């Protein structure tokens, strides 16, 4: 079984190569974005600041910013809930067979 982060990396590695190229660049831009104001990249920010940046990009009027967040959000959510659902399905099947 792969972790959610592993799932994200695996998804990114398999996406169409022209999209992957664009996403890699966008992800680097996203990470470097707070540098000018805080002197730190995104992955070094504390949690409230990270949430703040995600919210700003999500609400941005620039489609590429929204698109990046929507992509990560969808795959993180799917990855997380996949495991929950498996447990529920197993319980459901067992209950039906009892």
């Amino acid at each position: 079984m792969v972790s959610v982060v592993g799932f994200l990396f695996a998804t990114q590695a398999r996406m169409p190569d022209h999209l992957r190229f664009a996403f890699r660049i966008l992800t680097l831009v996203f990470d470097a974005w707070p540098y000018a104001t805080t002197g730190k990249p995104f992955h070094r920010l504390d949690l409230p600041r990270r949430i703040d940046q995600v919210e700003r990009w999500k609400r941005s009027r620039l489609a590429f910013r929204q698109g990046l967040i929507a992509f990560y959000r969808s795959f993180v959510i799917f990855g997380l809930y996949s495991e929950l659902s498996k447990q529920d399905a197993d319980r459901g099947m067992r209950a039906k067979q009892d």
Partner: protein
Amino acid sequence: MVAEVAVIGSGPGGAVTAMLCAEAGKSVLLVEEGQNLPLHWPEHFSRDEILHKYRNAGVNVALGSTQIAYVEGCCVGGGSEVNRGLYYRTPSYVLDAWRKDFDVRYLSSDELMPHFTECEAIARVEYLPCEASAISKRLYEGAMNLGWHAIEAPRLYSYGGRGGSKQSMSETFVPRFLKAGGRLIADTAVRRLSRQEGKWRLDAIHTPTHGPSQTVEISADKVFVACGAVQTPALLRRSGLRKNIGNSLRFHPMLKVVAEFDYEVNDPGDFDPVHQIKEFEPHFGMGCSISKQPMLALTMAGRPDCLAYVEHRWRRMGIYYVQTTGGCATIRNLPFFRDPLVRVRHSEWDLHHYAEGLKRLSEALLAAGAIAIYPAAPEYPVLRSMADLRKLPENLPNGSGNLTSVHVFSSCPMGENEVLCATDSFGRVREADGLYIADASLLCGPTIVNPQGTVMAVAHRNATHAIENRFA
């Protein structure tokens, strides 16, 4: 490697074609880019399935002002391994239009019927032997309350035995192909076709899960390309064949909603939902989706404030869709990139039908007793009453996200109309000796109903024709 016939792609089109050629006594090589995995592993609709059986981990987008995210299978059996197998024969009005507009010869319902029945004898089609799930019945009851036409769809599924078994290609046509002496080579992507000394040469890359990639050369007298409606034109265009190839990709784009009821409808042990509303076809149809927690969460992903709600209330929720025929796309290869670029355009008519379909679907769900409807398109509000529906826009706003499609076709239509068609009426590529197309690319337009039955029957018809005519 040498064969009389090479079939590229083992989805419904390729598997049916390969089996018929092998049973006709030809030496056949079936080449598949994806892995050869058991039907039941990875678990259906799991993230491992997405990684192992879907092309590009399910991340494919037709780019445009209104985009369509689409998915395709990539494993032995192609889309049939990951789909729900909802099954239909092609409506006769669809075939009539194809004959009229594309001049496809010998394609009436009567002429296609023997091919449907022969495919159905190998991949069984059955109705649910028990009551449908509550999610499914809600849609049907909503339609009945409004006096709309709705039905229960059969599936490519054998319900006998514990849990039953999906009638995917890896369970049906591929085993028969192997029994007839056919050879299957998985993990092998054909990159280019060329003609050399009267034979076809296929340049491929074999990439086993463990171990380094290696190049493979295949030589064959006849080649059937069945890579699916996006990869077939990409491969042909890479090989220098372009006439009417990759100019007319069509979809069945879906808009999804989550409907919430005030009682439990979602039981994880239920069979997949099967009811569909037919009242508005051919403009749009409606149905129920798999509503497991990850799918619910994904459909609600544009409304993050609702996610906690899903976690507590998901047993009262189901996912429903309206499916139209909007969008027409081109497929083009880009220099230095492997994957093709797909670009889609929509007309005002398309945008109107998306919006109208969403309203009608919501109407059916309210009539079924839904207390809230959450459209996947985040720019739409939560809908709780008919008054809310009346306030919705006439057209889907341009640039609206969340159109998805699991059906792609028509990128290389068949027929005698040389202005529109890539092949003759039986899938033979014009001006290329011994080269055929054998998959969903050939369909002249949307099937309106679920397409796999049509893909199989058309492949069966065309392969039978080629064999009977000794590939002349």
